[in-house]
């Protein structure tokens, strides 16, 4: 096990190295002088050569690319991700202000997905080929196809504008505003983000349960007279939970993509919305910093999932 963990962890290094090169090159290859972006496009025509040079000096973009890359990467290790071109605040500070909203959104989405998706999948797999199974599967196929922003509109239209149950947009912190306000604001974004994963998890749970239920040892368990509930809970679910673990890893990556849309629609002050704004403003240090944070966290979540998987299924370690 230790050997597997070591080997798997070492693989992270080249991947993160390439991630940093990709992130850095995208921003280097982007057309347009960052100094011009800071000066606000046309204004560069009125700025003197010294002024432009001073801005470039301050931003450190008059140095050779290799030097810039190394200092940027060095900064990443000590948590210093550069400064926003506009607010001149450090990217790490901006991220620390936005991270709570993003984590709240992602967690509420995943919670809804797991809490509803797993039982739906179990029910469908257990009652295979009945109307329960079919309606769960119809829902699962639908959940995949509905774009998040459209679902969000429909939810807002029905539950906020017509029924008035939930606010149209915004975010309240769990810490400072209390759980009731928090839930009122996070429910619709959570559903928006969670539905697709709920569909995925339900499908995955169902198919792995169906497969496990056809195994010989399940027949044995039934043959020796165990109740259906015990067979399901003690024998089938344990084996069927494996693929679901992998899906949670996948869901994490997809959830980050989902936050971009969800946070924009619901005006939640999180990292996804910050990213969209940075892309619109061409605020490259912010884009770079966020890309590195998202990619790094994805790599480490996957590492954890792989290790967990190897722990649950010894065969993985030796392949």
């Amino acid at each position, binding site marked *: 096990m230790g050997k597997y963990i070591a080997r798997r962890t070492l*693989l992270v290094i*080249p*991947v*993160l190295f*390439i*991630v940093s090169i*990709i*992130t850095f090159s*995208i*921003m280097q*290859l*982007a*057309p347009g002088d960052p100094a011009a972006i800071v000066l606000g496009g046309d204004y560069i025509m009125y700025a003197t050569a010294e002024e432009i040079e001073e801005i470039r000096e301050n931003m450190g973009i008059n140095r050779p690319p290799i030097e810039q890359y190394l200092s940027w990467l060095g900064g990443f290790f000590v948590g210093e991700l550069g400064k926003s071109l506009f607010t001149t605040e450090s990217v790490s500070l901006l991220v620390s202000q936005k991270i709570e909203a993003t984590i709240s959104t992602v967690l509420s989405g995943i919670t809804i997905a797991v809490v509803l998706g797993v039982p739906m999948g179990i029910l469908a797999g257990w009652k*295979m*080929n009945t109307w329960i*199974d079919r309606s769960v*599967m119809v829902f699962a*196929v*639908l959940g*995949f*196809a*509905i*774009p*998040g*922003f*459209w679902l969000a*509109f*429909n939810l*807002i*239209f029905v539950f906020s*504008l017509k029924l008035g149950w939930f606010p149209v947009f915004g975010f309240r912190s769990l810490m400072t505003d209390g759980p009731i306000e928090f839930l009122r604001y996070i429910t619709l974004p959570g559903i928006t983000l969670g539905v697709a994963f709920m569909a995925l998890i339900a*499908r*995955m749970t169902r*198919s792995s349960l*169906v*497969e496990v239920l056809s195994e010989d040892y399940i027949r044995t368990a039934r043959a020796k007279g165990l109740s259906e509930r015990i067979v399901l809970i003690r024998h089938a679910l344990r084996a069927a939970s494996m*693929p679901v673990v992998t899906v949670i890893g996948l869901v994490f*990556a*997809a959830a*980050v*993509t989902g936050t*971009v*849309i969800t946070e*924009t*629609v619901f005006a939640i002050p999180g990292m996804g919305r910050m*990213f*969209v704004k940075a*892309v*619109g403003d*061409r605020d*490259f240090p912010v*884009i770079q910093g*966020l*890309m590195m944070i*998202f*990619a*790094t966290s*994805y*790599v480490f979540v*996957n590492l954890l999932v792989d290790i967990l998987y190897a722990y649950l299924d010894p065969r993985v370690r030796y392949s």
Partner: protein
Amino acid sequence: MTTSNRGFNPNEVRQAKGVGSRIYIQFMRMLKKNPNMIIGLVILILFTTLTIFAEFLVKYDPTAIEPIDRFMPPGAKHWFGSDVVGRDVYARVIYGGRVSLLVGFMVATFVTVAGLFIGLVSGYTPKLDIVIQRIMDAIMSFPTLLLALALIAMLGGSVWNVIAVITIVDTPRMVRIVRSAVLSVREQQYIDAARGIGAPVSRILFNHIAPNTMAPVIVQATYFFAAAILTEASLSFLGLGIPPEDPSWGNILSLGRKYLQQAFWIAFFPGLVLTINVLAMNLVGDGLRDALDPKLSRSV
């Protein structure tokens, strides 16, 4: 969707290879066993025809401004209502479908070609494999929409840039599928035999290995088609994909969200049509998967 819908059995497929009429019979049998796939195909064919012949089938110009008709609810005159400057939403949705289908089709094609090529090379040559796989892992570490957005920031928004960007983002996922198919085929005896008679690597790759990876590749291509349409809509929705002059589902939706209270139909209909199309593609993909790739249908 149910695991029992496996379509035809592999032995029959092998016999049918090269015989046109038999393939047709197999195809019909596959459809009969999988009614959902028929629904999906019918929707797609209908909708594609509608967008291709939009000039003859849609009576309004999607960009024609008619201030008197501003915010008309759906009805006989404007089937899907009209928007803030009186443009016909139905016309805009149909014309917007052109962009979406073009993006989906092109991405699916490019991803398949690039994925096949890189996946074949990577799976067959272990030395390159290590390097290629790390690069693919790195690209896949970025959440798809985020990488697409960053690349759009670099390239600027246009239909072809959107296609290029989604292709870059999706290719590694296709590479992984091709590669794993190659790895399982590589050790087969007929590959050894081909090598034994001195066949060049290119022939082994493209004539012997590639055809055997086609089943999962075709299935995945339909999913990429659907996913690309969703990604394009997301990019345009965020105002960073297709320029606002051209109607696309994402654009129309993005405009409609401002008027949700007074004219919900502007945002509702493009989303509905988008959902129906993506659903149809997924149904076709599921049907193909059950028919061509029984192994996959067990895993998801």
